[in-house]
Structure formats: C-alpha cells, structure tokens
C-alpha cells in the first residue's frame, strides 16, 4: 500500500510541523503550509490525497481555500479543523464538500481514523 499523501494547512507553524512529524511517524507522506496561498500552490503542483485544513486563518480563510481546492480537483478530500463552538463553520464546510470536521485540540487517533476513512472513500 502506498504511503498516504497528506497536506496540512494551519497558520500556527509549531502546531502544523509537530502534527506533520507525528503523522510521518505513522508512515504518511506529509507536506505543510501555513497559509491558504501556499496550500493552493501545493495542490496545483503536487496534489495530495487529503488536505487537513484549519478554518480560522489570516488571509484566505479555510472555507475559501476549501472551495478553491474543490474547484481544482474535486477528488481531493478535505478534513476541516475548527474551534469549539464554531460547529456552524464545520457544517458549512461539509456543505461545500469537506469530508468531515474535527474540533481542536484534536486527538491523533481520531485524525488518523478520519484520514483512513477519507482515503477509503476515494477508492
């Protein structure tokens, strides 16, 4: 089985880099981006299978990035990360084509499970 190709997008660098390392430990191919523009560049040049996308970001918001990714390649699955009490954003993201949403701070096992589900749904 190929390694999962994942793109992590979050403006908090410490968070995103640590999470990336943890996922790599779990045998995944992880790229990181700290803003929407960079993320879209990755998607265009080296499209991942799943994008884990923070909703609350300066510049392009998570939902805008989601829309653009879906416009580029609708097969790419997106899992949104939201703050608590921002369930509305999660629901809105689902309507825009996100695979699921998780509330921060996240549980690594839950994330891995969701990622597996997302990959499975692509097949």
């Amino acid at each position, binding site marked *: 089985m190929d390694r999962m190709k994942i793109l992590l997008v979050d403006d908090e660098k410490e968070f995103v880099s640590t999470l990336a390392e943890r996922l790599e430990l779990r045998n995944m191919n992880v790229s990181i981006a700290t803003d929407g523009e960079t993320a879209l560049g990755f998607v265009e040049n080296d499209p991942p299978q799943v994008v884990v996308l923070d909703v609350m970001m300066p510049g392009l918001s998570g939902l805008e990035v989601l829309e653009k990714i879906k416009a580029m390649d609708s097969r790419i699955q997106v899992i949104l990360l939201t703050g608590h*009490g921002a369930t509305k954003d999660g629901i809105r993201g689902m309507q825009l084509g996100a695979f699921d949403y998780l509330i*921060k701070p996240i549980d690594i096992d839950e994330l891995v499970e969701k990622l597996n589900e997302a990959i499975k749904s692509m097949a």
Partner: protein
Amino acid sequence: MALNLKKWFHIRESLQMLTDADSSSSQYRLFQRNIRVLMIVLTIVPLFMMALINYHQYQSSLKQEMIDPTKLLVSKTRHSFEFFLNERQSLIKSISYFYSLDELSDEKKLNHILFILKKEFIGFVDLGLINGSDGAQIRYIGPYNLLGKNYANQDWFQEVTLKGTYISNVFMGYRKFPHIAIAVQRLEENGNSWILRTTIDTTMFDNLIAAMGLDAESDAFILNKEGIFQTNSRLYGKVLEQCPLKIPAGGNATYIDERKDPNGKDIFLAYTHLTYPEYTLVVVKPKSTIFKTWYALKSDLFLVFLASSILIVIVVFRLTGIMVNRIREADHNREIAFRELQHHHKLSSIGRLAAGVAHEINNPLAIINEKAGLIKDLIQYAPDFAQKEKFSTLVGSILQSVNRCRTITHRLLGFAKRMEVEVETLDLNELIEEVLGFMEKEALYRNIDIGLELAKDLPRIDSDRGQLQQVFLNILNNAMAAVEDEGRIFIATWEKDADTVAASVRDNGCGMSEETCRHIFEPFFTTKKEHGTGLGLSITYGIVKKLGGDIEVESKELEGTTFKIFLPKKSIT
C-alpha cells in the same frame, strides 16, 4: 404665589423622582399627596364658587319676589288711607259749601247733619262751627262741652286760615279713643269767614291695617312726621308713643329697607309717606319669616355641597390611589426589565470574554497537545531505553491535563454560545449532564450525592441550548445552595406526553415555606439576602415560559424542594 405653589407641590421634581429607577415609596406618597391636593382644589373650588353664586343669586331673586308684593300692598293701603281721609275732608268741605253760616249756626240743623254723617259714614264724633276771624267756637255738637272755646292761638287754626284745610295728628279724645280732627275754612263772598271742624275716631285706621292681611309675626302702623305712633303697633308700642324705628322722611314712592330692630331682630321694612297729612305707613316683616324657604334651600344647598365634596374627595382618593399604584407597577416592571437587560448584558459580555479567552488558550493548547503527542509517539517508536516507562507516564499526564484544559475551554465556549438565541434539536439528558459538569467539583468537595434517573429513550427536543443550560444551571445552583454538605440531589427526566418532556430536580435541603413558594418566581425575591440578586429564578421562569414550557415548584420546610420543568418537543417559535 404661583411660584410658591409650584415650589410647594414639587410637581416636576416628584415626576422626575418617579422616573428615576431607585424611587422609594415616600416619593410615591409625596406624588400621591400632591395630585390629591391639586385635584381636590381643582374640583372643590369651582363647586364652591358655583354654590356661592347660586346662593347669592337665589337670595336676591327671592328678595325681589318678596319685595314686589309687599311694595304693592303698602302703596294700596296708602291709597286706602288717603282715600279715607280725602273722603272725609271733601265731605266736610261739601257741607261748608251746601250750607250757609246761618243754617249751620242753627243747632238743630247742625245736629241733624252730624246725625246723618254718623249714620252714613264711619268715625264721625262731633261737629263744631268756629268764627274764622276771632277763633271762637260758635256752635258745637258732640260729647264735649266746647261751646265758646277760642282756638285763635292754636296752630291748627293758623294753618286752616292759611291753607283752607287741616287734618290733625292723632290725639286721645273722647272716651280715650284715638282721634283725628279735620277742619275746613269757608270764605263767603260777603267777606265772612268761618271754619267747620269735625273729630273722627281712628278705628278705621285699624281696619285698614287689618285689611292688609299680614301674618302674625308681621306689623304695620302709621307714624306722624315726628315718628309718633298714630295707630297701635303690635311690636313697637302703643298709639301716641314714640316709635323706636327711625324712618327717613321725604319721597313719594314706597321704600324698602333692611335693618335690625331695637330688639336685635333682623327685619325687612317697607314704608311710604302719605301726601297729606304727613303720615308714614310702615310695614315690618321679620326676615326669618320671609326667608323661611330661603333657609330651607340654604341647608339643602349646603348638604348638596357637602355630599358632592365628600364624593369628590372619595373619588379623588380612590382614583389617585389606583393611578399612583399603576405608575408604581409600571415603574417596577420597567425596573425589572431594565435589570434583566443589565443582567443579560453582563452575561453576554462575560460570554464574549470567555469565548475570547477560550479561543486564545485553545491555540497554544493545541500546540502543547501535539508536542506532547509527538514526545509520546517518539517514546513509543523508540527502542527501550532507561526510564522509558517513566517518560511515557509523564507525557501521559501532560496529555491528560491538556484534556482537562480542553474541557474547560469547551465549557467556556458553551457558556458564550448561550447568549445567542437559537433553536436546535438537542438531547435534554445530554444537556443536563453538561450542566452537571460545572457542579462536579463542588459536589465532590461537599460530598453531595447527585442521583440521576434519566429516561434512556427520551425524545430529542427543539429548543435553545444556551437558555436551557442557564435554566438548569440556576435550578441546580439553588439546589446546591439548599442542601447541607453530604446532602442529596436527585435529577430525573421522562416523557410526559406526546408533546412534552419533563425534568425534575429534587433536593433534601432546607425547603421553603408556602409563603416563599408563592413568591419564588417573582423578580427581586430572594432569601439569600446580600448574596442573591433575586433574579435567578425569575429569569429561569421567563426563559421556560419563552421556550413554551412551564415550571412548577413543590416544597416542604426541612424536607426539601422539587422543581419540575416541562418543555415542548417542538419549538413554539
């Protein structure tokens, strides 16, 4: 004056005071007093003026009604007197023309004339013939022995020779009856002058006065020029006495006068002067009889005034009482609304603050979570090394603490979310457990046993999560406050009917009296003294009602309290 009045009433100030939120009952009392005084003055003064005007107008019209007939009566009687005297004067004058001096000098003839006069006319007493030049009585027929008496030096003789006729004042004559004398002079062509004189008793005067038909308390009499009674007065004296009432002289009309008589009685006086002789006819009526109807009316008027005044006062008092109470209630309600709003604002700003804090903490928390997670991963994937177990445990407890922090921030965010009013489908059991999460610590410290009996298949309901959280938070807080340490709180949910779910919170705390139970949902009612705002349960009540539900309370002192909350399955909004 106007300024002082304004100052005294403090109208503006009292209204201003009422609009202040912290108005005390003394200000309402002042306001009530001012309105009452003002309203009473505004209503009673015009009423009083009306009564006064009525009083005077009626009095004057009544007086006029009394005056006119009295005037008429007086002038009629005066004419009767004048007619009576003129008739007798003319009669004597006619005799003086019909007969010559020689004929009248005949005693038999004169006697015959007197006889006829006495027979045909009332009052004639005697008849005398007097020499016009020397005043000697030539012939006399009558009860006195006056033959030969000389009148030359008497006033009346002078007057009759000057004017040709004379009517005397009343004098006591024959058999002590009052009389008057009438004399006429005859100047013959041959130059002879003689005087015919007669005495007339005044019984007729009394008859004429009696004919006026006056009532028993009234009086009528004749006075001469000097104010000597010419007839008997019922009230003021006998004939020939001096009258104590001073009647103004002069004038031909009938005059009306009001005064006090010498006895101090209020009288009503009508008088007229006869043309000749200079007599005055006087009618006296005591005011009390004239105004008998007036006095009756006066007391009626007073009674009506009194009754309406009392009525006005009662109505004003009741009305202002009601009015001021309404204002007080309105103010009170406004105050409640204001405080609720304030409370809401306070809660929502706390909510916003909490949300801000939670968001800010959430990010570093996420980083800590990942870093610690990475350490855990690294330890897990690394080959065994010294103290690997220990590291693993340490990282595990960091992650546990992060989890606890996460729970706290989630709760804070949940609290913030409560400020937004929105209906969603929710599970009441879940909500209650969530709220209980806030109490766990306190319950643990105080060793309070919280029992749950939540219906397993309780249908989800459409309601406002935040508002419901507040409802249960308030009720559970109350329960916690009511129970002693090591007390017991029991929470149950069940499906009441097809449309309603119910929850109950029972405690075995201090309970409440019936009186307290009655007021428990009223705003500002509190038994916590300085700790409570008295708003908690009133807000709770307001929310439950707003969500279309109902809330009940049962309590027994020293046994505990049970709150029951009923919520509709479908939102009413």
